[in-house]
């Protein structure tokens, strides 16, 4: 038997989505504009896109670039952030560098990268990599900095070498913070993925979206936005599952559901 409160809590995200679609439907029927198709038209266009082999290859190519860019960024950023957090010399070297790069929109670097590396996979993956790296470095750095000195001393007394301390104490102790950075990084990966395909129009989900816009196929444009949004929600939900499993030992910070998982 589910209590009414639990029922509301469970169905709330679904109800919110249905509500949004309903407002959209009413608004578009009222406005009667070509560039604002009804929600039903947009939703009806989704199977067409997903059923089309060409589109599917494009979307999968986007996801592949995103996965590669995100993966490499995480693998390089976590060790760098942890080292910066524990070594004054390393942070003194990298901090000013990152401070300069941090506020620059990574998509703004694309024209230069395109000049060097062309409009292919490497350029787009590199931009995704840059977008993901900074939040992951920053959060790893903050997490490593906050690790209690006495915890490291306890490890050292058991005979852990400085490198072992970094891998076996700093890494797990900073994990909640690191994963917060990764979650931000994941959303940024999706954003930079679409943006990179907007700028270097060759393939990908962003390319489908903007081609449809050029050709005035507005229901496809809206359908693509829904698909990209759904991709974001699914990726985030899967990541949240993994994250909560990994850091169950740490203090629960919020009682509110922060994702749709």
């Amino acid at each position, binding site marked *: 038997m589910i209590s009414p409160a639990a029922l509301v809590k469970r169905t709330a995200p679904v109800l919110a989505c249905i509500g949004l679609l309903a407002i959209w439907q009413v608004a578009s029927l009222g406005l009667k504009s070509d560039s604002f198709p009804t929600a039903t038209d947009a939703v009806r266009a989704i199977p067409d896109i997903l059923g089309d082999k060409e589109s599917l290859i494009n979307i999968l190519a986007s996801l592949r670039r995103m996965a590669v860019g995100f993966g490499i960024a995480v693998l390089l950023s976590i060790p760098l952030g942890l080292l910066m957090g524990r070594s004054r010399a390393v942070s003194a070297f990298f901090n000013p560098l990152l401070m300069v790069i941090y506020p620059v929109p990574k998509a703004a670097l694309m024209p230069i990268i395109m000049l060097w590396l062309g409009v292919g996979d490497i350029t787009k993956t590199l931009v995704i990599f840059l977008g993901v790296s900074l939040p992951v470095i920053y959060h790893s750095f903050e997490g490593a900095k906050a690790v*209690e000195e*006495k*915890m490291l*001393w*306890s490890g*050292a*007394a*058991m*005979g*852990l070498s400085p490198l072992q301390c970094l891998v076996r*104490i700093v890494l*797990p*102790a900073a*994990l909640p913070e690191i994963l917060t950075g990764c979650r931000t990084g994941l959303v940024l990966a999706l954003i930079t993925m679409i943006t990179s395909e907007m700028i270097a129009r060759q393939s990908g989900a962003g390319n489908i979206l903007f081609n449809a816009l050029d050709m005035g196929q507005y229901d496809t444009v809206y359908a693509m936005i829904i698909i990209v949004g759904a991709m974001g929600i699914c990726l985030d939900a899967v990541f949240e599952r993994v994250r909560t499993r990994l*850091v169950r*030992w*740490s*203090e629960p910070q919020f009682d509110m559901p922060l994702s749709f998982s």
Partner: protein
Amino acid sequence: MPSSEWVRPLTSQKPASAILEIDRVSQVFQTSARKEHLALSEISLTIEEGAFVSILGPSGCGKSTLLYIVGGFVSPTRGAAKMKGQAITGPGPDRGPVFQEFALFPWKTVLGNVMYGPRQRGVRATEAEAQSRALIEMVGLKGYENFYPKELSGGMKQRVALARTLAYHPQVLLMDEPFGALDAHTRTRLQNDLLNIWERDRKTVLFVTHSVDEAVFLSDKVVMMSNSPGRIREVIAIDLPRPRRRNELLLDPRYQKYVVDIERMFDESEEAGAPL
């Protein structure tokens, strides 16, 4: 109170040999670009094997720093500390710390924390687990093996920290105000339990505290320090019979005299130093 007045505790049978030697250790901290603070000045101290020694002093007298130097976590500016004749150059499993902040590994369960040291020392998993379970029972936490540190109270956390350190068999226990963060009742219980555990195997203990009665209750020797710069003011042998029971000891005039005398000395030390 001349220290020669007090004979060695009756309970130590074998001839005591020095396990720790602190030789003219000074510690200077750079407080700002131009200012230096002399935290410890020319500290010399010998600690005998199997002794329970407390370092007592007002806050800021450098007593914790002295413990960190023995632990190898901090290098002294001048002088040297030796463990069994070997100069201490860094932390090692022969000296096990227990900190006021517990410093448990929050991602490990109680059992995982206690097993960490033995596993690191190369003990087989099954053996390490059996030993750790026995230690957890000894510190009174049977049934909590699979709890995470966040689920435990302060007193329980400190019990885990003690078990975690005992698990890798250090020759010296370095306790840095271990009960300082606990409420009075929990503190008393942990003092009793620590004494019970200690009286079984008589490990050498260096115990930093600012509580006079805690120092007298637990120790064979109390090293009284004074403030600014940190110096040893007096070493007082506590000649009270063991095993010690709190309810007997509190009524014992000898115990009361120690506490009163040391408290007076404590006040004088504080007056000698910087105003609080």
